[in-house]
């Protein structure tokens, strides 16, 4: 039961935020979309241990696929999400077949290179993608034929929240399955997993592909709700920020991804609104404090505090 408590509380908080901040729904929805993206990074990096700085490759692909699908084929949101997921997974599978043969810094560089190439292709294929102007003219049909997307973003918020919950529950099940446990094993020691007969390479490719599909869903969600796809979807800064948010919250735990996104984006929202030039001071200091004092991320804070409250010699060893 305790395992389910935190996600349920987070879901209730998300419902409460809808009523508490009815004028900030655009920002809150962006947080939800980013949570989906960072959850995908958590699967790839936190569970499977694949260092990636290029998750934007799948996010952008999902966004363009869903946007083009809505314009040229069918404006149904759920069908668009499926298209985005398939597109993201396809890119991840194709690049993953190469990427998973390498390790460490090389993987990081290759993920960056894949995203950079897709960014440039989207930039050059102006006729199809609108290039630097972005893909415009996306008109979505009502969700399930019932709920129109409204100007204030109410439908968008609930729609994104449901997607977040579905992805979260799906990942909870996946990471507890034998496949998820296998990924943890690979994360800790690929050699031992290979020695006990696990197909390490194919497990990693599968994890990367699933992660790509989820990142594609995040991109599709963003395209449908903002009704715009821009080159930013492929930007290196998106991948880098997703990584920062995840490590801030804590890797290898789904809760960590949610908390990291909420914290980073809230701080960014207020610090950048007050002083757009100096917000890097705030985020830089925050990042350093977390790395030096909470190396396991923000999610380790309650545990550390509890141990200190209980006192005793254990407190020092925390």
């Amino acid at each position, binding site marked *: 039961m305790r395992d389910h408590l935190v996600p349920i509380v987070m879901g209730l908080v998300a419902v409460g935020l809808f009523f508490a901040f009815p004028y900030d729904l655009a920002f809150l929805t962006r947080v939800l979309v980013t949570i989906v993206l960072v959850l995908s990074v958590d699967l790839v990096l936190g569970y499977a241990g694949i260092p990636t700085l290029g998750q934007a490759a799948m996010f952008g692909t999902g966004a363009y696929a869903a946007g083009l699908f809505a314009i040229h084929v069918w404006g149904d949101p759920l069908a668009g999400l499926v298209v985005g997921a398939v597109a993201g997974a396809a890119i991840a599978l194709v690049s993953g077949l190469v990427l998973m043969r390498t390790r460490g810094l090389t993987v990081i560089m290759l993920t960056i290179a894949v995203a950079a190439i897709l960014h440039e292709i989207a930039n050059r294929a102006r006729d199809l993608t609108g290039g630097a102007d972005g893909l415009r003219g996306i008109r979505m049909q009502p969700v399930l034929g019932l709920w129109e997307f409204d100007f204030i973003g109410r439908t968008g918020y609930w729609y994104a929240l449901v997607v977040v919950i579905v992805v979260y529950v799906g990942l909870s099940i996946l990471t507890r399955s034998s496949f998820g446990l296998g990924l943890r094993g690979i994360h800790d020691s690929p050699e031992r997993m290979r020695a006990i007969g696990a197909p390490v390479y194919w497990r990693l490719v599968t994890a990367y592909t699933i992660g790509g599909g989820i990142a594609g869903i995040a991109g599709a969600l963003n395209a449908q709700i903002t009704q715009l796809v821009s080159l930013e979807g492929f930007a*290196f800064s998106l991948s880098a920020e997703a990584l920062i948010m995840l490590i801030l919250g804590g890797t290898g735990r789904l809760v960590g991804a949610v908390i990291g996104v909420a914290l980073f984006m809230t701080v960014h929202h207020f610090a950048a609104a007050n002083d757009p030039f*100096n917000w890097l001071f705030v985020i830089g200091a925050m990042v350093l404090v977390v790395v030096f004092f909470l190396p396991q991320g923000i999610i380790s804070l309650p545990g550390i505090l509890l141990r200190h409250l209980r006192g005793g010699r254990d407190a020092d060893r925390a």
Partner: protein
Amino acid sequence: MGLFLNIVIDGTAYGMILFMIAVGLSVTMGLMRVVNLAHGAFALVGGALAHWFQQDLGTGFGIALVAAIAGTVILALPLELVLYRRIYRMGELQQVLATIGLTFLFIATINLWQGSALLVIEFPQALRMPVDLGFRTLPAHRLAVIGLGFAIILFLWWLLDRTRFGVRLRASVDNRDIAAAHGINTDMVYLATFGLGAALAAIGGIMGSELLPIEAYYPLRYMVLFLIVVAVGGMGSILGSFLAALGLGILETAARYLLPDAATISFFAIVILLLTLRPNGLMGRV
């Protein structure tokens, strides 16, 4: 033929600048095993200091260059003592996060101090003079950059291969504990190496400011480029960084001359190909 020579000359000058900055990164990443994403920040600090000495204090280029390099090292050493010493012991992800956080602080500080405009560094008359190569004229400082690049690789080879310091550094890197047990002050060796990396970054930042202009977001804008040079060259290999920087410099220049529309795509496609064929880089040790 003229086109070919143009590509070689421009590409070599560009590659030498990449080399000067990336070699410091290769040393810290390959030898000291720290993923130092803040490396470009030292190039930025060097460039900003040189700009400040020239524009606000009115010194000549030579003094500004030396003072800026010294200033960068003076800033880098306490950072090593206070922060990096702890960062060495962290896991890779924590290193990435810590050095990105540090980069943000550098950017914000330079932004606060010098603003977000381009920080121009003026080269002296002697270096701005055009030099006639027969088939084209070239600003003298491109030739100076090429010469400096060769000088730096010779210096580094001599330092790491032929001096006592080089022996100590290689010993500390191979096995820090055993090196320390042999009486090598590994803390000092790491400190000196870190300072050397920062100094190289500052030189590259200043000398390369014509091709890679200095401004507050410099460390983030070129971070990927420098990392790619190190990854392709092989971490910790001076010669690898040199070959990778030259090769990628000439390649990118060639792509810009020959296929301006597909320059970025072909650059990254070749990087992917190279890293797939040689995951540890051209000269990387396994």
